[in-house]
Each structure stands twice: as structure tokens, then as C-alpha cells.
């Protein structure tokens, strides 16, 4: 790569590695930890790290929404349900899982990583690092808003109906008596 220069330690690179390592480690903890509350917390950390990755990609609005919606609302809902049902975790965690499924799941995971990884490694991605000036502008939020209300107006409205339906559906499902 003749045009790309990799400085030994640039700010985005350091940030990328910090967030990437945290995301992957905490993602692993999600599936390893026995206690559902600990799993949920690990997932919160993963989500925050992914939000950090979004920031390094210049997607400020999406990063903020990720923390507000995912970490601040959805995961709190998870914790709320875990507390409501008084779940205390599977005894022994992963040790309770049979040997067969364990091997199968592990093999599948490794296979997935190698297959998709080989795609990432070999595919010819459009060259040229992104131009920060065009993307990191303070208008990020404004431009997303304009897109939402022009090209994506119909999906936007449909999604709002979907949210209403989900609201009603969850009330109907969880309520005991009407």
C-alpha cells in the first residue's frame, strides 16, 4: 500500500484498539458468565465500546443514540426483567451444558470467524481511507435528519407504527387480566 501511511501511534488507532479489545473481551464474557446480571453488564460494556468505535468512525449521532437507546433503555429493561423474575443464574454456568453442544458451538464459532474473516482479508474493499473532512463535520446529525425525512420518510413512518404495535403487543402479552 504505497499511499497509506501508518504512524506508529495515532489517536484514532489507539482509540480503535482500546474499544475493539474491550468490545471483544466483554462480548466473550456475555456468553461465558453464569449469572444473567453479569452477562447483561458485560453486554452493556460491549455496547458502550461499540459506541466508541462509532465515534472513531465519525458517526457521532449514532454513537449517542447507541448509548441512550441500547445501553440506557434496552439493557435496563433486561435487568428489570431479570430482577422481576428473581433469576439467580444457572448453577455452574457453562459447566451445565453437555459436552456435545459445547464442541459443536465452539467449532461453529471458529468456522464462522475463519470463513467471514477470510472474506474480510481477501475481498477487494474500495481503496482509499475515508476523508475525515467530509465526514467528521458538525453537520452529521443534521444530515442524518435530512435523510430520514426525505429519502427514508416511508420507512421512518412505518417504524413508528411498528413501535406502537410492539408497545401494545408487550402490554397484551405481559398483562395477567384485562
Amino acid at each position, binding site marked *: 500500500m504505497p499511499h497509506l501511511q501508518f504512524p*506508529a501511534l*495515532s489517536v484514532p488507532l*489507539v482509540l480503535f484498539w482500546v474499544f475493539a479489545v474491550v468490545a471483544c473481551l466483554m462480548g466473550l464474557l456475555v456468553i461465558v458468565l453464569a*449469572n444473567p*446480571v453479569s452477562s447483561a453488564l458485560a453486554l*452493556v460494556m460491549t455496547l458502550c465500546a461499540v459506541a466508541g468505535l462509532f465515534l472513531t468512525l465519525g458517526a457521532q449521532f449514532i454513537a449517542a443514540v447507541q448509548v441512550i437507546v441500547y*445501553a440506557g*433503555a434496552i439493557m*435496563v429493561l433486561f435487568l*428489570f426483567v431479570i430482577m422481576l423474575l428473581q433469576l439467580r443464574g444457572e448453577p455452574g454456568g457453562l459447566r451445565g451444558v453437555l459436552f456435545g453442544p459445547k464442541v459443536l458451538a465452539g467449532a461453529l464459532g471458529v468456522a464462522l470467524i475463519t470463513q467471514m474473516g477470510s472474506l474480510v482479508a481477501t475481498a477487494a474493499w474500495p481503496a482509499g481511507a475515508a476523508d475525515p473532512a467530509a465526514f467528521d463535520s458538525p453537520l452529521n446529525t443534521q444530515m442524518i435528519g435530512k435523510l430520514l425525512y426525505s429519502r427514508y420518510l416511508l420507512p421512518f413512518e412505518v417504524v413508528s407504527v411498528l413501535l406502537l404495535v410492539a408497545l401494545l403487543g408487550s402490554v397484551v402479552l405481559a398483562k395477567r387480566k384485562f
Partner: protein
Amino acid sequence: MIHLLDNMLIRAAVQGLMIISIMLGCVTFLVWTERKVAGHIQLRIGPERVGPFGLLQTIADVIKLFMKEDITPSSANKVLYTIAPMLAVIPPMTSFAVVPVWSQFALADFNIGILWVLAFTSLSVYAIVLAGWSSNSKYSTLGGLRATAQMISYELAMGLSILPILMWSGTLSLREIVLLQQRHLWNIAVLPFGPIAFLLFLICAIAETNRAPFDLPEAEAELVAGFATEYSSMKWSFFFLGEYAAIMTGCAVATSLFLGGWGGPFVDQVPLLGIVYFVAKVFALIFVFMWVRWTFPRFRYDQLMGFGWKFLLPATLGTLVLGAICMTVFPGFYHQFYGR
């Protein structure tokens, strides 16, 4: 590149430490103020023995807390039990970073400033949830459950109550919102939606910081001390610290959004006056918080949820629609009177 990194990091670290220590200092002062205000509202005098006017009372209390035994219940989840108090302090302090203290200084000037504040506010619920869950006691669990439901509900209304102001300012950066208010009028004076939005935001901020009349999570009469029942010593005081830091941050954000931030008369000639104005406004708002706390009785739980969902949410949505209608239908009026 490395040089730049060093410089940036060191500068940010020093400024961050400065802000944190100032906030900690303010908390000691605020605890004293709260007790004095409470005393005078209830026709008492409040602390007066330790130091002049009892000013050193909080220091004495902190020393007492340090000396106390740090108890961890044997049935508690040790790790989460220890993490929870830390999580109580981090979000309010972090969200303070984007508040512009005066024209020359804000720790971080993001163009998504207000979203940053909302993001960290939404994370502050974890401290209470975890404290409630990990203590493994029924009072704590009930307090934690109440707090979760309450904070999710009022967070929604808080986000919505800011929207008319964002629409009016056309930016998410707190600094630019303050600058716009200096050129024209404070946002609280933008009729008809300004004052309504301010009032709604203040109510939500009080509910978000779990203070009376919304202090259901720790309602001492029914739940002992709610989510903090099992906590003692420094761990407990971290929750206390977090609450006061959250109050300060909430008031600072309200000041920037509605009360013109560091703006005031002669601030252009003497920029340092900005800090004085900012601190004065923040403390005036904090006084309102205390006044409310010692004046109103506590809600019942169903009243609390009903108020949040059936009154506050429709009211904020209504304010948003009202603002949108006013800005579209009477642009001439706003241009003439508010110069926009």
C-alpha cells in the same frame, strides 16, 4: 503525532481533575447548605457547632464516615456490590464535561453536547439497579426495581422537554446554545414554549436525581433506605456524592439550556464575570431543588408513575407541538421580537 497525543491527554487530564475537585468541594458546601435550608424551612437553625456557622460540619461527617466499618453482606454479590457506588459517581461527573462554564472554558466542546449529557444520564440508573440487586435484600431489591421504572419513565420526558429548545436553537452543542442566547434572549423567555419547557425539564431533573417528592427508591418510611439499605461507610457516601453531583450537573445543564449559561450584563467587557453569573445561576437552581424537597410531601408509587406517563409525557409532547406550530406559523413575530 505522539507529541500531540501527550499534550492533549495531559491537558484534558489536568482540566478534568480540576473540575472534579471543584465539584467535590462544592458537594461539601451543598450538604451544609441543604441542612441549613432544611433547618430554616422547618423553623430550626441547622448545624452551627463545627466551625463558623457550622461550615465544617460536613468535613466532620466525612471523617466519621471514613472511620465507620465497611460492611459487605455475606449473601451479596461482592463484585457488583463494590462496583455500584463507583457507577453512581461517574456519570454525573462525566456529563459535566460538556457544560460550558464560561466563554473561555468547557472541558469538551462537542457538537453533540446535549446528546452526551442524555447518554450519561441514562447510564446513571445502573448504579441504583446494581446496588439494589447485588445487596440481596428485599428492601434493596424493591428500591432498585422502583428506581429503574422511575428513571426510565422520567428520562423519556426529560429528553422530550429539551426538544423545543433544540428546535429553536438548531444545534446540539451546549456552547452554541449559550452563545445564541447571549445574542438574543434567554430561552426561558421565548414565549410561549420556553417557560413551559423549563418547568417540565426541572421536574424531570428532580425526578432523575431521585429527590423528594420523587425519592421513592429510598423512601425511608417504607423501605428503610431503599437501594442503599445494606451500604455503609464510604460506599454509602459515594451514593450521596453521586446524588449531589447529579444535582449540580442537572442544574448546570438547565442553566446552559434555559438561563443563558455564563451570560449576563457586562460579560463582554469583563469575561471573568461569566463564571460568577454561571455559578450564581446554578446555585439559585440548586436552592430551588432544596426548597422543593423540604416543601412537598412524597408521591405514592402509582401516583408517581401516573404523573410521569399520563401528565408529564403528554405535556412535553404538547409543548413540542406547540413550539413547532408557533415557529412555523408566526416566523415574523419571532424574528421581530427575538431576532431570529
